[in-house]
């Protein structure tokens, strides 16, 4: 049997002194495309930080590609949540190049090898044209493509993408998800991709990892996204409704737990 890309056993993770995920265990086979779902504050970002070695596990063992977790692991590509733009005057190329071996001491200078690897990463996400423009002039979706290129720089085997679809319009969401899926398949990468809404990822995911109430549930989409499974996970009545080829997770009281495109404005229950 091949070594799992990710193996967590009885892991507890805290953030700012508060327990976010408690005693979770799951294992992701290599090459799997996993959608990480859960409401705001369910621990998606904390889980990623734990896998990156930025939040030490309070208990349990985390293994990445069979080795115990460590900071600065080059086999993990990470795309943090989009945040306030810094250095928008710089070109997209400069922005991506800053991440190429950016952890090494010395001058911010890319050698021929570095430029080649930046070029390859930009090509992979079809962003060579964008790279010539100042980042501040790019749209949210275009900036996401640059961030994705950054995550690909070290040819990782595991991609952790934190809300890569946030702030995109519905058409772009699906396009971006497909782009990531195709990339991952062609390179044999394992992908963990967190999202607010499951629908742009439907049909692409091999597994879904559902986080709620400090617990985690990993499985096939058809096994996890059921009224029974989620009701057990939440410990409260939750309905999984399928309509028009889409999936909605609705709590008693009418609030949507996962908000389709964040535009329905439902209450978020965690």
């Amino acid at each position, binding site marked *: 049997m091949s070594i799992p890309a990710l193996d967590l056993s009885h892991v507890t993770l805290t953030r700012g002194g508060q327990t976010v995920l408690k005693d979770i265990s799951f294992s992701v086979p290599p090459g799997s495309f996993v959608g990480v779902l859960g409401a705001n504050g369910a621990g998606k970002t904390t889980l990623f930080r734990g896998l990156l070695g930025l939040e030490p596990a309070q208990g349990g063992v985390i293994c990445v590609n069979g080795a115990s977790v460590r900071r600065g692991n080059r086999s993990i590509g990470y795309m943090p949540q989009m945040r306030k733009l810094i250095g928008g005057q*710089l070109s997209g190329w400069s922005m991506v190049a800053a991440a190429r071996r950016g952890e090494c001491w010395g001058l911010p200078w890319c050698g021929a090898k570095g430029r080649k690897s930046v070029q390859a990463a930009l090509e992979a996400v079809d962003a060579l044209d964008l790279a010539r423009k100042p980042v501040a002039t790019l749209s949210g979706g275009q900036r996401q493509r640059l961030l994705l290129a950054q995550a690909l720089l070290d040819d990782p085997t595991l991609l952790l993408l934190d809300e890569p679809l946030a702030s995109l319009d519905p058409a772009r969401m699906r396009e971006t998800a497909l782009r990531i899926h195709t990339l991952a398949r062609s390179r044999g990468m394992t992908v963990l991709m967190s999202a607010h809404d499951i629908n742009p990822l439907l049909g692409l995911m091999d597994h879904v990892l559902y986080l709620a109430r400090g617990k985690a549930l990993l499985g096939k989409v058809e096994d996890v996204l059921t009224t029974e499974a989620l009701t057990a996970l939440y410990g409260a009545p939750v309905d999984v409704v399928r309509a028009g080829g889409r999936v909605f997770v609705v709590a008693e009281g009418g609030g949507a737990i996962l908000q389709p495109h964040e535009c329905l404005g439902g209450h978020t229950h965690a």
Partner: protein
Amino acid sequence: MLEYDFMRTAFLAAFLVAVVCGPVGWFLVLRGQTFASHALSHVGFAGATGALLIGLSPLTGLTAGALGAGVLMGLAGDRVAGRDVMIGLVLSVAMGAGALFLHFLTHSASAATALLFGDILGISSSMLGWLAILSGGCLLALGGMARPLLFASLQPELAEAKGVRTALLDVLFLALVAIATAECAQITGVLLVFTLMVAPAAAILRLGLPPFVGLLAAAGLAVVEAWGGLMLSWQTDYPTSFWIAVLGGVGFLLAGLVASWLNGHAQQAASDQAGALDMNDL
């Protein structure tokens, strides 16, 4: 004007200081920490007047004061809530202490003017030596950490994940800013540190040059503005700091014009290209 010893010293001092202020300022503007440099210079003022009081050179006091404050500021990081208020308070307490120290100094008026508005023509050869040592040290340190500093400034979370020690870099960088500020205050004075530290760097950043080129260009522009200020001061007999401030402002405006012209040009080129493609489609 170069036949005079003090002018040669002034040009050399301006070069040594500007060549550090440009690139350090480039990072300051990029990271949005320009206010920190302003605050550090004020703490340095208290240090300088205190040093005068106990018979040390003002540069020693300036460097020590700014360095101490810079390291503390870096250690405090973003954790302190209401950071801007805290910096403002430290700044005003420091200025107040400076006023007290000046009160005890007998030759306070000339010392105060020199510290607040700079005294580039009064730089001694021994101070020139110190400036050379500090500048050399700063450039070496910046050269060593520019790459991870750039990464950590642009993408803090990603840099952290890749193993960059961002907290350490924050402290190191502010220490560097403190030394550069202390040096800069010799020329432009405590109140006008912005003119050499921020103005040239901000102008260069507007142009959107790649980081390495931008750092070199910021150093170059800072030297040009500092030397230009010296020459204009020689011609007009107005204070050097005034001319450096004016040149800084003009440089910033010109860079804005160049940037918008370049952008317009790029858009024109893009639409021309798009037009040509349309023609091909037909």
